[in-house]
């Protein structure tokens, strides 16, 4: 019995050994069949699923290119003339080189040859001119909007020859080249551009020149992209110019944030976009990749309405600047991935300088400023002056999920030094209707905004040239006007950068803008198997260089 049993065992062991040999041989055979890869070459193939909270509204390229949602898809389907990385550094892409004249009113772009759109149309000078024209003007009567942030000084563009484009401006426009790397400036086939809006709104009918093409899509559901095999003109800055590695990327709409994260956790999807910041810590500990890239733009903060009492008093604005504990905001609402604001523009913007000293938390200084300004604390802890309470109404920005939590924290911080803070949280529609820069009931407007080039910052702040008059100063602040005009007319960065530094100091010292934190508007949770994605200057993830492992 025992003997028989042991012999059985033996035979089982032999069997196991035999099968493993066969398996090993089979594996070797398969390995022999697969093309030999040079050591270190990334693995080709694979498919990923990216779960996103919305797929925006329209797919008309001009109207959707800068959407937080569709921008992801456009980034894979289209190329740009230049590449802007996360530090705002501009490098060649479809434009291999460029020159500008002395006062930055004329630019010449030299295009890469042999580039084509997926419909077969060559990406040549005339195609670039067609794109520049529609970015600037749109076709409003048809519902094709201009690209809002394209320089309004644009005059015209001419095709000098098939690979050379001359672009002319009515005034110095230093920001033109960086604009070409911004999310609105996606190159679309001139055949698509010539089509009416309803045709352009069908994503499947739009041709770009990017590493992926649209294979299928359903509105409000998904977009599936497949690799374009003949792609060979990627931006050198990302270290790869040939076809993409991943075969396909599927963007699938799942509106519930916890479902998106759960799907990645369970291996049903590879990336979840916009998880709630509170989940990040535990996801990181569980081994998932968390990306919180910053875009180039303004920090999240408050533009103060200087026409409204008591914020017409510089001392009160300065007390506000010193009375906010910015570190506590990051510790309470966010994770260490968020950075302290060092100016009113993000620290990765070229031309941004460090003004942390002006933004230090100093409640003692704030209380003294308020005392000097005549605001005295009552028995209930709220300061009053001439029978009026020191009050501040905050309208939480509906475009930022965490805005209200930050407002609540700020209300506590300011409450300690005698402020009475009211918080109003409107939905997007009501916010758009009621809350404006300098509105009669809006002492502080919460800003979340990206921009392309620091040169455009100064002109937004006042009301000249269609500016947005952020601080409701009109043209009353001579120093701000002077800085604005000098910056707009600066013909080189060497002239412009010191002026920008002066502008940042002045705006923060005057308490015109109250920074809260550097902004992260795009958060990604990613499976550890997926590697090698790149984030550009507007914080979109590009999977052009990404690979997926076992």
């Amino acid at each position, binding site marked *: 019995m025992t003997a028989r049993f042991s012999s059985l065992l033996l035979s089982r062991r032999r069997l196991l050994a035999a099968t493993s040999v066969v398996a090993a041989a089979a594996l070797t055979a398969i390995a022999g069949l697969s093309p030999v890869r040079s050591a270190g070459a990334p693995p080709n193939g694979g498919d990923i699923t990216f779960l996103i909270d919305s797929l925006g509204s329209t797919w008309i390229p001009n109207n959707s290119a800068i959407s937080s949602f569709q921008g992801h898809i456009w980034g894979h389907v289209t190329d740009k003339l230049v590449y802007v990385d996360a530090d705002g550094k501009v490098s060649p892409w479809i434009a291999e080189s460029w020159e500008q004249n002395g006062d930055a009113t004329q630019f010449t772009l030299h295009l890469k040859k042999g580039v084509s759109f997926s419909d077969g149309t060559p990406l040549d000078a005339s195609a670039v001119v067609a794109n520049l024209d529609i970015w600037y003007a749109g076709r409003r009567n048809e519902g094709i909007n201009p690209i*809002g*942030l394209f320089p309004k000084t644009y005059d015209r563009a001419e095709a000098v020859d098939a690979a050379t484009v001359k672009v002319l401006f009515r005034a110095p426009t230093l920001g033109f080249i960086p604009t070409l790397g911004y999310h609105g400036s996606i190159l679309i086939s001139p055949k698509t551009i010539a089509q009416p809006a309803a045709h352009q709104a069908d994503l499947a009918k739009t041709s770009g020149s990017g590493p992926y093409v649209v294979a299928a899509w359903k509105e*409000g559901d998904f977009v599936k992209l497949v690799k374009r095999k003949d792609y060979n003109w990627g931006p050198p800055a990302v270290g790869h110019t040939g076809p993409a590695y991943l075969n396909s990327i599927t963007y699938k709409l799942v509106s519930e944030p916890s479902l998106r994260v759960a799907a990645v956790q369970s291996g049903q999807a590879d990336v979840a976009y916009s998880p709630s910041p509170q989940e990040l810590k535990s996801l990181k500990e569980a081994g998932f990749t968390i990306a919180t890239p910053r875009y180039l733009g303004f920090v999240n903060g408050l533009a103060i309405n200087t026409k409204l009492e008591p914020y017409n008093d510089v001392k009160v604005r300065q007390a506000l600047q010193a009375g906010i504990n910015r570190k506590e905001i990051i510790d309470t609402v966010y994770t260490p991935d968020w950075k302290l604001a060092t100016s009113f523009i993000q620290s990765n913007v070229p031309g941004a300088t460090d003004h942390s000293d002006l933004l230090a938390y100093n409640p003692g200084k704030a209380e003294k400023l308020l005392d000097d300004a005549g605001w005295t604390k009552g028995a209930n802890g709220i300061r009053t002056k001439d029978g009026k309470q020191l009050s501040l109404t905050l309208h939480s920005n509906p475009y930022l999920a965490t805005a209200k939590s930050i407002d609540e924290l700020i209300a506590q911080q300011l409450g300690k030094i005698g402020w009475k803070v009211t918080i109003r949280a409107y939905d997007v529609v009501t916010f758009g209707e009621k809350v404006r820069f300098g509105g009669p009931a809006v002492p502080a407007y919460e800003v979340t905004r990206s921009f392309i080039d620091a040169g455009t910052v100064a002109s937004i702040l006042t009301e000249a040239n269609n500016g947005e008059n952020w601080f409701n100063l009109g043209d009353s602040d001579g120093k701000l006007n002077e800085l604005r005009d000098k910056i707009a007319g600066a013909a080189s960065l060497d002239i412009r950068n010191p002026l920008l530094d002066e502008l940042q100091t002045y705006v923060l010292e005057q308490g015109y803008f109250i920074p809260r934190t550097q902004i992260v508007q795009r958060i990604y949770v990613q499976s550890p198997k997926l590697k090698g994605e790149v984030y550009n200057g507007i914080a979109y993830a590009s999977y052009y260089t990404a690979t997926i492992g076992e």
Partner: protein
Amino acid sequence: MRSAYLSYAAKRFAQAVVVILLAYVFTFVVVSILPGDPITNVLRDPQNGFTEDQIRQIIAAQGLDRPIPVQLWTSLSNFVTGDLGLSMRSSRPVTTLIAEVLPSTLLLASSAFAIALLLALTIAYGTQFLPKRFGQGLLRGFPSLFLSVPNFVISLALIHIFGFQLGLFRVIAPDSFWATFFAAIALGVPVSARIAEVLIANLDKESDQEYAAVARSRGLTQVRLFARHLLKPSSLPVVTVIALAIGELLGGSLITETVFGRTGIGSLVQRSVSTQDLPVLQAVVSLAAVVFVLVNLIADLVYPLLDPRVKLIGGRRVRPTTADDSAAATTAAVTS
């Protein structure tokens, strides 16, 4: 009798057309008086960087600055000629948008309807033949229970149990067989309650009738008695309820599709409401009104043909009480 039926049919038809037009105008007015408009909402996103002047021009180009009555008239005359226009949100033809999502909703609604009918019949059968102590009373409580549990609670429970716990379907693949099946259950349960209520009430009434007693005394089996004798007369009022159930299915699909992540008419409505996409809302509401009115119209027109006891009095149908049923039953059926 025939002329009475024709005038009844004509009146019903005219009413149906008026209801559809009223639904259209009502939707237009409601959406128009809401604050904001879809174009401005998009343009005001600070990321877009539009000036007030540009926003004004774009709105004028869309004709959104014209007075409401003018906009309504334009929209209504296009609708009557079958032109549903372009979605304000996506700039794609409204007909395309609806055609894209309709199959998914039709599949869900028809599966839900089949499940609802099956469930209602099962419950109704049980209430007639289950002995009292074997839970007949419990079964009678089911319809009110089904009606009182909100649709989304059922949906979430099903997703949690069968999707997450048992792994029968993946949440990110809502069009798979099992995902559709459970979505149809979630949608069908409340609808089954309505049908079951009416069915039970009628079955109770019919089983007290003489003919049922006679049938029972002849020793008919339960199933035969139910299927051959009781079900037909009890089902007639159900025709009316089914017409109402279509409305439930339309409304419920909105919630079920959102919770299950399906892309159908419901999710299209949800997207369009949140962005105030008037042309799409108009089309969907009108479509729903057309379906609803049409089903009711068919029910109203078929009913007198099915039930010989119904009398048509000036565009209304009147069913005599069961007391004169025997008399009415002898009158010839209406022939069309």
